[in-house]
């Protein structure tokens, strides 16, 4: 594994995603107002903030689930704001959901197959597809339940399944929305291990998380949102000692 570089030496060309002045209003509520966001290639970026801070809205904007009212989103240098979810997925941004959205009556292996068949611009033939689907199932640790239906899995495995389906689209950038929520401590440790392994494969990750231990130990950098605005940005150490952040969290 390559050693992660410090913040300072990343050049402009190392940014995989750049969002400027992202704004989204729901009626009078500003779910995102003027958020600037840079994601560097290969990093694991944490997104934290109190409930209703606009974290999931930000994911929805980046993944095309919602069109922004204002702002620019550049992915690998190309403007993707306003593209449909499937178009963004095929360009290399995959996501998971805060409340798991698996296909409850579909087999585990078919979930991955679906991501493989539809989430890429180019797909390989039958054998190659089978091999890669198997490889992904092994990677996330679902190979033993490949024929079970999505709805019959326990929560931890449903979360793995969402990750597997997302990985099958061969993303360059993976958005993980509260992967740890609802997991037992053991499962959480496994999930953290999985996130690290995905990062080592060269996939850039942005993760929304409430579990501070996970965020502080995995992430290279953290962004803090509050009421639709970015209020802090920095390394885990910087964030842990940031006064505004502590106020926002403890003051709520």
């Amino acid at each position, binding site marked *: 594994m390559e050693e992660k570089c410090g913040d300072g030496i990343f050049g402009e060309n190392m940014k995989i995603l750049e969002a400027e002045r992202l704004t989204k209003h729901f009626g009078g509520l500003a779910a995102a107002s003027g958020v600037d966001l840079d994601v560097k290639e290969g990093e694991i970026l944490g997104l934290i903030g109190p409930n209703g801070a606009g974290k999931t809205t930000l994911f929805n904007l980046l993944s095309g689930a919602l069109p922004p009212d204002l702002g620019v989103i550049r992915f690998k240098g190309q403007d993707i704001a306003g593209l449909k979810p499937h178009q963004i997925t095929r360009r290399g941004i995959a996501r998971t959901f805060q409340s798991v959205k698996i296909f409850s*009556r579909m087999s585990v292996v*078919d979930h991955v197959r679906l991501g493989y068949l539809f989430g890429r611009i180019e797909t390989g033939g039958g054998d190659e597809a089978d091999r890669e689907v198997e490889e992904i199932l092994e990677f996330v640790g679902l190979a033993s339940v490949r024929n079970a239906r999505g709805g019959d899995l326990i929560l931890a495995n449903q979360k793995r399944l969402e990750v597997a389906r997302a990985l099958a689209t061969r993303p360059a950038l993976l958005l993980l929305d509260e992967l740890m929520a609802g997991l037992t401590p053991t499962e959480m440790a496994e999930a953290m291990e999985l996130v690290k392994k995905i990062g080592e494969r060269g996939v850039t990750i942005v993760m929304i998380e409430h579990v501070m231990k996970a965020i502080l130990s995995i992430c290279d950098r953290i962004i803090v949102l509050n009421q639709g605005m970015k209020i802090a940005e920095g390394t885990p150490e910087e964030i842990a000692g940031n006064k505004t952040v502590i106020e926002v969290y403890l003051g709520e």
Partner: protein
Amino acid sequence: MKTPGKKYGSFIALITLLALLVGVPGYMSSYTVILITNILMYVVLTLSWAIFSGPTGYISLASAAFFGTGVYASALLSSSLPLPVVIVIGGATSFTLAFLVGSLTLRLKGMYFTMFTFGLVELVRNSLHWWEVNMTGTVGRLIITADNTTIFYAMVGIFMSVLLVSYLIKRSRFGLALQGIGESEEAAAHSGVNVTRVKAVTFAVSAFFMGAAGATMSMRWTYIDPTTAFSIQFSFMPVLMAIFGGTGHLYAPIAGATVFSLLEELLTTKFPYYYMLIFGLIMLAVIRFMPRGLEGVIEKWRKSVETGSSVKT
């Protein structure tokens, strides 16, 4: 997972069914031929309905619009073109209509989509009516008929095609996408499925066969007008038959439509005054006691047979 043996079994059943059907006009009365044509029409409507609504769960009441479009395409063309061409044009017209309408309206979900499709039938019917009154000056028209045997074989052909297409869709990546859409549209979209296009194309494919069935039945009826061609029963019957049969396996809509239309035939001839009442009661009983339809009963029975036999060995 299907075992090879099971697959082989369904294949044999299908060939037998086809052989029986092909022989029907040879050894059955013309009443039976007409009756079976009628049943096949409902089977085709129900199977086509299930292509789209089965996996996606979108309840469409637009079947009558596509069926009627086929009827009218045939009414306008059957004097000048050969039967197979008329049937294909009837199907293609419905396909186009469904694709356009689907692209615009398949964003609607649940009840809103159902209401819209219901309205579509009225819209097409009234537009045609207006056109007939104001442009052609006549309402209704006579059709140069093909004989009953020809119509019967045409319907068998359409039935086999819709069955084949349903099977291929189920097995293809397209079928996988449809299943995903039915379970979570959002997740399917974020896995790379072009949800709007997949829905519109499937809706159109299902409409193709409804239109083809309409184009064929139009010749059987001799006289048609917008009210008979776009009768709302062609929208409701496929839904009821699919509820009655189920939509999980291919045999389910076939069984549902067959039993249901036989029942209708029986009740209308034996109890002409009460048949709607009896029908309603039967439907209530089905929903109460067989929530998954005939399919639910058959699959339960199958499972018990399988576990029973595996205990023995």
